[in-house]
């Protein structure tokens, strides 16, 4: 069967188009008509651009061929499975501190694993599929118009296929006392792609902490897109923890818009997955907005991870603090590409970027590429990048106290990443990530 299309089509997009046509009748039954335009527009966009080529600067550090040659079409689990394995995954990766939890299994809301009772007034936190039906006022504005021309290929694919995800809407002035947690689990029951969409709207002056974690089993392609809008003086702390299964592809994207004097503090920790791509696009649209964009990756075996950040300072007095730390051993490959743009007229912008990396074996590699584009004359911008091995002097100091070489190395790697984790302003989240890092490091020694 081949779909009839009236737009240009890249060959690798064809299986996805066919999958889209197969799902048409189900979508028509389940989804409101207003979403159709966005879906079709997104699909057309993906069909036109297809898989990015390695010649493109934003995709040169990641190998997409395995995915291109063996398409992982959208998986449609009818009923999400939550057997013992899913519960144990959740037990592993879930926060131990009290949290409002929304769990998704194979890309679909799993109410049985979620804890949403007791949300304070002024907060709507629920599944994307439910929001589309019950609260179109929260999502329609973002999902009605077709995507813009500069949408990234896999964001477009996500627009065509996302089955669920989450929506968090916080009214002005609301201060949440405990973290909101979104846990994405893949059961391994069906191999395919899992497209999820998140939407966070933080009202003026609100304060919240959000954790999004990813774990799973089997061969799957996670393609998650989250849009964030912070109103005036909103303050959001967000942690993203990627611990996908060893055969999984994980593509995550965040697109954030910062209004005047709003603050986002975002941390992404990449630990698990065969190929991981993390895109962060921040638009500092409001004056005096602040963006703390930090993260770390720890890679072994033949893992690949690529972090690409774009921070666009469109308003005067906006600030960025960006610290990314990378560790690669065995034959792993990591890459950090960080662009900071200061638009004309965005005076008094203060932006600092740091990329520090440890390469622990001769066949591992990390690329780092900072990029500043400054079109205003009264700004303070700096960047630094380093790639190196563990500090020999520190290693000897630890060993001279009787600590074995393996333990000393683990302590120094842990310390290196901990420095970035310390930038998270929530103690229970810091603890959670540090324990996940310790666990990951222990697995390296086995």
């Amino acid at each position, binding site marked *: 069967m081949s779909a009839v299309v009236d737009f240009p089509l890249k060959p690798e997009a064809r299986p996805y188009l066919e999958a889209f046509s197969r799902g048409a009748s189900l979508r028509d039954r389940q989804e409101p008509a207003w979403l159709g335009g966005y879906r079709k527009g997104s699909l057309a966009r993906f069909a036109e651009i297809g898989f990015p080529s390695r010649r493109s600067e934003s995709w040169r550090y990641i190998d997409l061929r395995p995915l291109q040659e063996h398409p992982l079409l959208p998986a449609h689990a009818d009923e999400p499975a939550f057997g013992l394995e899913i519960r144990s995954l959740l037990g592993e990766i879930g926060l131990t501190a009290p949290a409002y939890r929304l769990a998704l299994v194979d890309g679909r809301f799993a109410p049985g694993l979620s804890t949403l009772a007791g949300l304070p007034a002024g907060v709507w936190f629920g599944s994307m599929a439910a929001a589309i039906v019950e609260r179109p006022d929260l999502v329609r504005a973002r999902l009605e118009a077709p995507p813009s021309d500069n949408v990234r290929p896999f964001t477009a694919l996500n627009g065509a296929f996302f089955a669920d995800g989450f929506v968090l809407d916080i009214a002005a002035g609301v201060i949440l006392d405990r973290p909101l947690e979104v846990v994405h689990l893949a059961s391994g029951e069906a191999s395919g792609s899992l497209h999820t969409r998140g939407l966070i709207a933080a009202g003026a002056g609100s304060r919240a902490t959000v954790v999004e974690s990813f774990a799973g089993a089997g061969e799957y392609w996670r393609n998650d897109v989250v849009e964030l809008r912070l109103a005036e003086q909103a303050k959001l702390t967000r942690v993203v923890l990627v611990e996908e299964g060893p055969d999984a592809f994980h593509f995550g994207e965040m697109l954030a818009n910062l209004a005047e004097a709003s603050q986002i503090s975002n941390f992404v920790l990449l630990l698990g997955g065969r190929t991981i791509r993390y895109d962060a696009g921040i638009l500092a649209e409001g004056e005096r907005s602040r963006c703390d964009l930090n993260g770390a990756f720890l890679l072994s075996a033949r893992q690949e991870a690529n972090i690409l950040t774009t921070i666009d300072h469109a308003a005067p007095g906006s600030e960025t603090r960006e610290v990314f730390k990378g560790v690669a051993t065995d034959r792993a490959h990591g890459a950090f590409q960080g662009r900071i743009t200061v638009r004309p007229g965005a005076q008094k912008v203060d932006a600092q970027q740091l990329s520090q990396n440890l390469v622990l074996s001769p066949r591992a590699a990390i690329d780092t590429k900072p990029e500043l584009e400054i079109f205003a004359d009264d700004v303070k911008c700096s960047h630094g990048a380093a790639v190196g091995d563990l*500090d*020999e*002097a*520190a290693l*000897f*100091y*630890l*060993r*001279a*106290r*009787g*600590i*074995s*070489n393996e*333990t*000393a190395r683990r*302590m*120094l790697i*842990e*310390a*290196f990443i*901990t*420095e970035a984790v310390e930038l998270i302003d929530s103690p229970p989240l810091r603890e959670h990530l540090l324990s996940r890092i310790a666990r990951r490091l222990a697995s390296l020694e086995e």
Partner: protein
Amino acid sequence: MMLDIKNLHARLTDGREILRGIALSVSAGEVHAIMGPNGSGKSTLAAVLAGRSGYEVTQGSVSYFGRDLLAMEADERAREGLFLAFQYPVEIPGVNNMYFLRTAINAQRRHRGEPELDAGQFLRVVRAKLKLLDIREDLLQRAVNVGFSGGEKKRNEVFQMAILEPRLAILDETDSGLDIDALKIVANGVNQQRAPDRSIVLITHYQRLLNYVEPDHVHVLQAGRIVQSGDKTLALELERRGYGAFEDAA
């Protein structure tokens, strides 16, 4: 014999020979001072004994309780009770001092077949020793040596020695850069740790420390060799006549 060094020759990886036939025997309970001018090989001797990389032993032997010390990895030497107080203690950002010390002491205890100390037991051990070296407890919550003053770093070295209770401690210029009050604290810390089953090797440029820690033996190191050995009066003679007087012997 605790430590027996015979005809030890060592060079840097760039080929420069620094140690040219060191001979030194240290018995249990003794304090030895090794004195010498800059460049005589004092710190190289400490580094080679502790197992730092970047040196190549070309001749000679070092026996430690009858075992070949040079065949042991640096961390194994430490677990066997050899301790080096660093001339330049290393700052290790991100590694908490307390966590570091507990990992170190438990590595030794495991090695000796003793049960590990839990956080509470460890804290009791630590508190008893903090006073000895006049170290503020909050330094323990910081990263190893990060933000420590020069004097605090040196005190921290002797504090670590007090915690780890080595059989052989080599103090590499622990007195350098200390004012007189800090020197007294460090010297007192060392004196408190003198014991019949513990030997101490003090490496120093100046006689000053030896006013407070009285050595049983003093050796003069010149151009990679011990050119003179004697009792504590040798240190005073050095102070009076300078290292130049011993040059001919080299």
